[in-house]
């Protein structure tokens, strides 16, 4: 293993080192107020971190194996629980892959509604990340404000889908419920409230000189390293790489909407937090565009609604609540496979579904953004002081249930 950075990556940092007697080993274990659902084996020499070994797998729920044992339509609520704070983006990937396999396309109105819920979830997920970053520095005001303001967006999502967190909104063929009448005014009120609050967040947290001194220059991830290690999400964009799966894949209604990808060049913790705040602003502008440009039409694919009896079809058209045809209970996956990539709040999620002619998928592979970001715990930490550990952890927005699946 070369230790030089000729490939863009310092290899000696990828391997966890054991060390001799002068190394002080601390287990920031699962029984710790701020370790999340995982364990870190931190090796210190004095106050400087020598190596960190992230020991994940404490909340491994064997979702890939479970998905092989049940019908593919049931995999949607199953996989939603991976990242429950961002549940629409998680399942949207699976639904897109299934639509490719089943050769069905969602109507335009459904595509726009998918964007709407995706952006609401993205804001909610970023607020969660901001709150956790705040409490890692013991800044309880940021924590309480972020989680209190998340309530606004969760209630908006409840208006749209009927559930606060477990939406299960997208299905192969479209979405399940139509937008209610009073939704645009409520969304506008929420956006105006959030714009005021974002200014408060900047004042008390990101422009607070004390917080800046904890975040500036800490945990720097260079552009070449970020690209080489396959980092995703705001962590990648804060290091100067302009990549977003919404642009790369062009799914749902994103090709018709205008939005910017916020970027920073520094790659330190402050840059990552600033990128998240900017992304909240971009998501709010996207929600406004969607509400303005929402086309009329059905929300569920014609291929499936024509299998419903005519009375139910009319009911679906009137109430805006979709009923599934009987075939959904035993949707057969043809031979073949499909991939899809979707941008979640935490980064890009990847699905690869292999069908073998039965109702259950032969293999369902999912790589979550947190699983791709785990390597940063081992890579970024050496050389920093021990108290930088929670600062870097908070800024990476790592979500253990998502990393473990």
């Amino acid at each position, binding site marked *: 293993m070369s230790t030089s950075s000729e490939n863009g990556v310092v290899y000696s940092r990828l391997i966890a080192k054991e060390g001799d007697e002068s190394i*002080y080993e*601390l287990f*920031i274990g699962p029984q*710790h*107020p*701020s370790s999340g659902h995982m364990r870190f084996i931190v090796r210190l020499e004095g*106050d400087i971190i020598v190596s960190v070994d992230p020991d994940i797998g404490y909340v491994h729920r064997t979702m890939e194996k479970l998905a092989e044992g049940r019908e593919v339509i049931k995999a949607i609520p199953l996989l939603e629980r991976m990242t429950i704070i961002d549940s629409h983006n998680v399942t949207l990937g699976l639904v897109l892959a299934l639509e490719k396999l089943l050769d069905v396309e969602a109507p335009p109105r459904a595509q726009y509604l998918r964007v709407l819920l995706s952006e609401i979830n993205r804001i909610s997920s970023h607020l969660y990340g901001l709150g956790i970053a*705040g*409490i*890692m*520095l*013991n*800044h*309880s*005001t*940021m924590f*309480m*404000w972020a989680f*209190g303001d998340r309530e606004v967006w969760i209630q908006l999502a409840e208006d749209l889908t009927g559930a606060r967190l477990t939406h299960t909104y997208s299905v192969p063929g479209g979405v399940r419920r139509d937008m209610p009448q009073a939704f645009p005014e409520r969304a506008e009120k929420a956006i105006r409230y959030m714009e005021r609050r974002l200014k408060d967040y900047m004042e*008390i947290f990101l422009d*607070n000189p*004390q*917080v800046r*001194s*904890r975040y500036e220059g800490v945990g720097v991830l260079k552009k070449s390293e970020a690209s080489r290690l396959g980092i995703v999400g705001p962590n990648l964009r804060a290091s100067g790489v302009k990549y977003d799966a919404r642009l790369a894949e062009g799914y749902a209604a994103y090709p018709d909407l205008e939005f910017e990808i916020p970027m920073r060049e520094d790659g330190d913790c402050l840059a990552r937090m600033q990128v998240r705040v900017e992304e909240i602003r971009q998501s709010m502008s996207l929600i406004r565009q969607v509400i303005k440009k929402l086309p009329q039409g059905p929300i569920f694919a014609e291929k499936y609604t024509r299998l419903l009896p005519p009375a139910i079809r009319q009911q679906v058209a009137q109430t805006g609540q979709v009923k599934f045809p009987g075939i959904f209970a035993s949707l057969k996956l043809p031979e073949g496979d499909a991939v899809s990539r979707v941008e979640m709040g935490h980064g890009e999620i990847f699905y690869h579904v292999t069908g073998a002619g039965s109702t259950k998928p032969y293999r369902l592979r999912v790589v979550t953004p947190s699983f791709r970001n785990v390597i940063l715990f081992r890579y970024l930490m050496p050389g920093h*002081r*021990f*108290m*930088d*550990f*929670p600062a870097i952890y908070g800024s990476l927005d790592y979500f253990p249930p998502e990393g473990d699946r």
Partner: protein
Amino acid sequence: MRVMNIEGIITWLLKIVLSPQVFAPIVFPGLLTALMVLLIIIWAERKIAARVQMRVGPLYVTRRLGGVLQMLADGARYMFQEFIIPDSADKTPFVVAPVMALTLAIVPFAFIPSAPGFVPIKSQYSLPAVLALISTIPLSVMLMGWASNNKFAIQGAVREAFMGLAYEAVVFLSALAMGLLYGTLDLEEAVTKQWLPGLLLNPIAAFTFFVGMVMSAGKLPFDIVEGEQEIVAGPYVEYSGIIFGIGMGLAYLKLYSLTLIYSILFLSGWNPVITPLYSIYPGLAGIFLFIKSFLLMLFIVFLRAVYGRYRLDQALRAGWRVYLPLSLIAVLLSIFLRVVNIV
């Protein structure tokens, strides 16, 4: 044989209780007032932080009063909790250290005057005596961390040692600057010499003493010793029961003593004296001193809603590179003001 009547006994008892040597350290501003302040200030901290953070804070214990007696409920809970001594801990220091810390936090009240002429131990050196006693509290915290035999506790004890190095010199030099300015190290005379509050006479010393006070009491942004996000309550991690309650309250007691000294040195102590109260009983005239120090404590606990935590080396660097030179400048300013005969 002299006949002892009831009246004589009661007068004798009253004389003892109302003498400064007993009243000041035990009742006001000593032990009982300190415990009541502990009760109210922790409740106030939680309520103030809650109001800033869009929530309600403690509410249910005495609902009509807004949950004021919450800490009494917490204290009662701690009383009934089992005090567990781990097998691997060093038993005698484990039990003795928090008690020692509490005692050392109460002893400074023997030197702090609360009204003109009303001080338990009248001494020319009350200021250095109080500061010396307060600076021994970190030793007992370190003993707590060592006796716990736990990696996180030892990390906390080491952090306490480092923080002690950061703020001790700053606090001492700022107090010394005021001592030079007033020409006396006696706290009682320091109040009488303040024709303007010390805050306006030597603002630099006031500022550095304030920051040193926040560092010493371990309040945000300097609550590094009990850093919950890294070392899980630091030296107090193995403690349970009432000892844990004492440990948590220790920081506030230290803060109380330091704010009393701050009010005496910088906010002109118990002035203006309410003469009617003074003629009833001298100890009661210290009410203004108490109000000033309480308001100062409220401001310091409000800082919790604004700041995060500093890193250990940042706090050390701030203490030595910024505040120590500033306090030296404060000493020079005091010398200059004396020479120019302002005081």
